[in-house]
């Protein structure tokens, strides 16, 4: 580093910096007060479609590379599959007849309108470009039935677990706040003892969540590995969706409640597809409205 022969920055540089810093802070002030929103046309369509295009390119490249390596195994698998196909053809016929029979029986029992919540499958196409915010972008939006504050779940290794909630809906994409986000809160309870608390993210994908406000009287019965589920009291998440398992826990001095670390049931680094649940019980100010 040399320190001789340098000039002082001109006033223009300071003025420029001051102008843009003030401008940024003004925009931040207005946007946090929700006075101003980015026009939906740009935010919803342009940005969403660019992200979709990037995700498509990425998917195409990975599929192409994968296809080349898979070609080696295809011939070997082909023979085995041919034999299995005949077997499956027989099974398919049997299966089709069973489905028809099942449908008939359901009609008879009046179970065709099974009161299960509607699940909308979506693909994660992008995430927040920075590390302080940790949102995901999914490829389904208002047009596909996604609404603000819909709970989102995923299936992994045979477990159905909570992933987060929808915080912003555009025409064809939506923003999902994962459960490890700093601002994520969910009313939760211990599945075994039904003690209620509040689950909160810590901001990092690999960091465990924190379960707060569980009374210290639970300390005797609490064990590592206990399951934590949603309680449904926040009217955002249906009850009994698995959040995760109890890791370590501690009782702070002079505190009446435990601080419990919860390891999420779903490993979000491996999740590609998620399901937004139509939560009919949710009574939130924006539920059902286009955002």
């Amino acid at each position, binding site marked *: *580093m*040399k*320190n001789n022969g*340098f*000039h*002082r*920055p*001109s006033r*223009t*540089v300071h003025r*420029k*910096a001051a102008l*843009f*810093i003030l*401008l*940024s*802070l*003004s*925009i*931040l*002030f*207005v*946007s*946090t007060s929700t006075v*101003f929103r*980015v026009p939906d046309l*740009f*935010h919803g369509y342009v*940005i969403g479609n*660019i*992200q979709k295009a*990037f*995700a498509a390119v*990425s998917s195409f490249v990975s599929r192409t590379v994968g296809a080349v390596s898979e070609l080696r195994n295809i011939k070997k698998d082909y023979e085995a599959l041919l034999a299995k196909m005949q077997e499956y053809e027989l099974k398919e016929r049997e299966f089709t007849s069973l489905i028809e029979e099942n449908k008939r029986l359901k009609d008879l029992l009046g179970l065709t309108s099974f009161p299960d919540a509607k699940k909308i499958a979506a693909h*994660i*196409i*992008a*995430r*927040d*470009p*920075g*590390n*302080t*915010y940790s*949102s995901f*972008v999914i490829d389904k939006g208002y047009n596909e039935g996604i609404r603000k504050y819909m709970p989102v779940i995923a299936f992994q290794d045979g477990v159905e677990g909570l992933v987060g909630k929808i*915080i*912003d809906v555009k025409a064809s994409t939506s*923003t999902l*706040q994962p459960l490890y*986000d*700093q*601002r994520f809160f969910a009313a939760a309870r211990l599945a075994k003892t039904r003690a209620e608390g509040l689950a909160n993210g*810590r*901001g*990092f*994908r*690999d*960091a465990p969540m924190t379960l707060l406000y569980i009374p210290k009287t639970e300390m005797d019965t609490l064990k590592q590995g206990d399951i934590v589920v949603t309680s449904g009291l926040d009217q955002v998440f249906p009850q009994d969706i698995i959040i995760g398992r109890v890791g370590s826990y501690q009782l702070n001095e002079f505190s009446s409640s435990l601080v419990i670390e919860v390891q999420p049931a779903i490993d979000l*680094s491996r999740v590609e597809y998620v399901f937004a649940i139509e939560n009919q019980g949710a009574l939130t100010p924006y539920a059902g409205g286009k955002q």
Partner: protein
Amino acid sequence: MRSLFISLSASILMLFIQSTWLSHGIVFGIIPDLAMSIVLFSSFINKDGQGIIVAFIAGLIADMLSAAPLGYYAFLYVSCAYLATLLSYVAEKDIFIIPFLLGTGAAIARGILTRFVSWIFAANINTYQIFSAEFGIELLADGFFTVLVFFILTFFQPLLENSPRKALP
């Protein structure tokens, strides 16, 4: 104007790459801020403050890609670009030390500035946990990736430099 457009395009491209192809992170889920590295490069080589304009527009695009409120990244990027421009008056670009200091310095500045922003605008503002291991990883990742970005961009420096037109004889 051309250099501003090229710098801006490169940083926006990096933002989209960060949010899609690098979405799983490089180390422990941490995404290096490549767009910031380009903003720092543009700010460092253009002492007239062109990098600040690039930072502002790239920051606004980052805000749109993020769940952050509009103006959050714009403020962070502009502040870091300003610091990089100031540094360019007292230091010369080298191959490792200055880019590394710029990358890590920008990460530390972001960490402090998010606290400041959170203090002023409490609603919806996430902050860096400065003493966490994850922030340490991000610091190092930003430092090393800024060195890499500076090295690559050095080959394209004439395209990113806002050199004033030479006076006619």
